[in-house]
């Protein structure tokens, strides 16, 4: 398998993982917008996590920001998979920011709220997976633009 093909496969997987994250974050966004944080799939702790003051940033549900982030990663990973040379650095940038945000939210759940929302943990796992996949992407040779 050539390095280029390997990169394409990895970015395709990143895009698919980002799609799963997008679905998860979209569901949580709808829950937050309708005020249905109580019935987060029957998980008792969702109420504590999503309904807490950490569930919003400047009045905007964090889940909505997450959905936008996943969509951005999906977009750039798709372009990267199609060989657009400018895309990988944006994927890495957004995924890096998401990784840091995920660490913060895990800290909030573990040490400040003492409650875990299963959808948030699923999202955290996806973000870590994306970060791992991006680390595994071999460096590109210059001038491989589509």
């Amino acid at each position, binding site marked *: 398998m050539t390095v280029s093909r390997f990169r394409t496969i990895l970015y395709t997987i990143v895009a698919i993982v980002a799609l799963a994250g*997008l679905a998860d974050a979209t569901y949580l966004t709808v829950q937050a917008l309708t005020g249905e944080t109580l019935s987060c799939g029957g998980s008792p702790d969702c109420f504590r996590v999503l309904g807490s003051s950490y569930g919003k940033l400047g009045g905007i549900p964090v889940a909505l920001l997450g959905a936008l982030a996943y969509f951005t990663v999906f977009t750039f990973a798709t372009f990267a998979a199609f060989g657009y040379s400018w895309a990988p650095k944006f994927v890495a940038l957004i995924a890096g920011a998401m990784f840091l945000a995920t660490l913060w939210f895990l800290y909030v759940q573990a040490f400040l709220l003492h409650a875990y929302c299963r959808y948030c943990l699923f999202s955290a796992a996806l973000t870590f997976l994306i970060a791992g996949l991006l680390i595994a992407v071999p460096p590109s040779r210059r001038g491989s633009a589509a």
Partner: protein
Amino acid sequence: MKRYLPFIIVVGVGLATFGSGAMLYHTKHSQLQAIPEDKALSADTSSESMHVRGNPNAPVTLEEFGDFQCPPCGSFAAFAEEVLKEYDSRVRLVFHSFPLSAHEHAREASLAAEAAGLQGHFWEMHDVLYREQAAWSKAPNARELFESYAGTIGLNVDQFKKDMDGEQAKARVDADKARGESLGINLTPTIYINGQPVDPKDKNPEGVRAAINAALAGKPHA
């Protein structure tokens, strides 16, 4: 064509996500609108079957119509307990059974709670039912579990069994259900603070605390 393919994929996924999100929002929003936000509870909260936890003379009453088999109600029960500790003697909790027909064992659980209440242990059974919700909800014979819970919390189990089948427990459950239905309730938990319904959007720790604080300050909550 390949040149445009990533654009087509991204736009397609964006539209599909937005569309499905909007549909989900619309579905949930319509359900929530069914809750009567304009209906306040009447002042008649002194019926015999009323279950009160906390200071009976507290200035703020947090009133819940709940279904023992509904997971969100379980979440709310844990939160309500926190609220009672946090606000100490300033808040009391009133619970009304509102078993939804969609939940197989909900009515039986309500009868179990009322039967325990006839022996003066409503809240102990209330707590056990929510704590063990995941176990009995899926059990083929939930009643056996309810009877074991009755034994665990120190009830006279024979009396408990009789009361579960008795008219008094049934009448209490029916009265609560009828009261909820008269208010147009069709979702649980539905929460009132000092007789005013809590907006579904505020059914979260922040929203409920804000409504309680407003009630304590003597202001109507949003």
